[in-house]
């Protein structure tokens, strides 16, 4: 392995491009005619602000066309101690983007001696989405959400992206992926900025249940296999993942309520 390259800056993705281009896939060389349904796609992710910071959640299903590709895919990844990425879209490039993002932030922090500002991190992700454009043109698009706790401003912040790398800071909530529209509809009714942790968890599970109810590609909580959505809280104390037990309890309460509303409780 090459020890001393020519790149002198502090960006990991630039280092890859300059000195280790063989480790990167250049999508622009690939001619069209690619069957995008032949690779797994991640479906629904969402995030919103609440009293202590920001919450990010994702279901666990990955689909290939009409087939289940994976029932326990992870779509929410901490990128450092105070920021998170959630990914929807083509699973391969999406998971790679989340991994690169984490390395990018850590690399910058080690080289420069201090971390990027939260806004700087969000902007960096914008460039990574933009670089994925050639793949997006072939149906392998990645649309992430990025969230974190801004310690300089003492506030949770949240960004949504589009396929071109467009970056939009959200004031309340955001959702992406095939079931994203239903999750957003659900949050529109329930979301409150002053919600507590418990209330937020309930809003998140409710939104994912609603999304999985309407969108066949979104996986709801799977009590048979014990697979639950991933829900992370990001506050001034860092990142905390909701336990499966906790999510199961909330899910069962939601089911019980829906059942009793229909008068079908046994």
């Amino acid at each position, binding site marked *: *392995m090459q*020890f*001393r*390259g020519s790149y002198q800056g502090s960006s990991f993705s630039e*280092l*890859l491009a300059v000195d280790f281009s063989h480790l990167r896939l250049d999508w622009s060389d690939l001619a069209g005619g690619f069957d995008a349904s032949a690779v797994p796609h991640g479906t629904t992710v969402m995030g919103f602000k609440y009293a202590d910071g920001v919450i990010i959640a994702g279901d666990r299903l990955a689909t290939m066309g009409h087939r289940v590709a994976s029932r326990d895919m992870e779509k929410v990844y901490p990128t450092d101690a105070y920021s998170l990425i959630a990914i929807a879209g083509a699973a391969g490039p999406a998971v790679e983007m989340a991994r690169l993002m984490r390395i990018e932030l850590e690399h910058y922090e080690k*080289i420069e001696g201090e971390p990027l500002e939260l806004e700087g991190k969000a902007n960096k992700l914008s460039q990574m989405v933009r670089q994925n454009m050639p793949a997006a043109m072939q149906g392998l698009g990645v649309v992430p959400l990025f969230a974190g706790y801004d310690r300089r401003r003492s506030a949770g912040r949240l960004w949504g992206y589009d396929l071109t790398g467009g970056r939009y800071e959200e004031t309340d909530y955001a959702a992406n992926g095939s079931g994203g529209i239903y999750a957003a509809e659900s949050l529109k009714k329930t979301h409150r900025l002053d919600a507590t942790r418990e209330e937020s968890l309930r809003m998140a599970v409710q939104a994912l249940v609603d999304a999985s109810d309407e969108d066949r590609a979104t996986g709801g909580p799977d009590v048979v296999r014990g697979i639950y959505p991933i829900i992370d809280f990001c506050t001034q104390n860092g990142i905390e993942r909701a336990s499966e037990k906790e999510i199961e309890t909330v899910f069962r309460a939601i089911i019980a309520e829906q059942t009793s509303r229909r008068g079908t409780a046994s």
Partner: protein
Amino acid sequence: MSMPFYVSPEQVMTDKAEFARKGVARGKPSLVIECDVGIMMMAENPSTLSKIGEIYDRVAFAGVGKFSEFDQLRKIGVRYADIKGYAYSRDDVRGRALANAYSQAVGDAFTQQLKPLEVEVVVVEVGDSTLAGHENNAIYRIQYDGSISDHHGYCVIGGAAEELSDFLSSRVRDGIPLGEAIGLGKSALERAAEGEPSVDVKNLEVCVLERERQGRKFVRLNSDRVGELLSA
């Protein structure tokens, strides 16, 4: 016609070595001590330009001598480690491979360039009790000419390194508590500080590779925390 000067290769090497040794000795020493929680690294450093740095999850770096030169080595190490961890796995990034790569690079500079690097660096790796074959700590010292050596328990680089090593050799013991290791390091550095009987805690740069920490095990201690540990 003038005759070109003949200088014997021996003389060239001796001159270069003397030049590099002087450069290294001008700066203050840095040291590492293995302790109960992992590995403690310490430098007397009143400036905000760090002499100690994180390389990867379990690997860290300390340098003495010319700042621009050892900081360049630190950055090369971070790039090397991040690329290796990206191409393979995070557990594949090991201190020994990095120390060998440093040894090559510093050694090449010593033989091929007119001016050798005026640096001395140490690479440390804290063990991981949960990974078979990776349980042990490792400490490697690389000198200005690329010579490399491994150490157990403690290591000192920079001016007065031999003297401070003698001081530590009779005092460092297995599993020494972190606070005690910091105290020991501080008294060692005080021995090197001529004419100054004491080193201010504010001027100490102290970092720890904590064995039990998840993921990135490198922690930089602020002077309040160092003071607390010293008085505990």
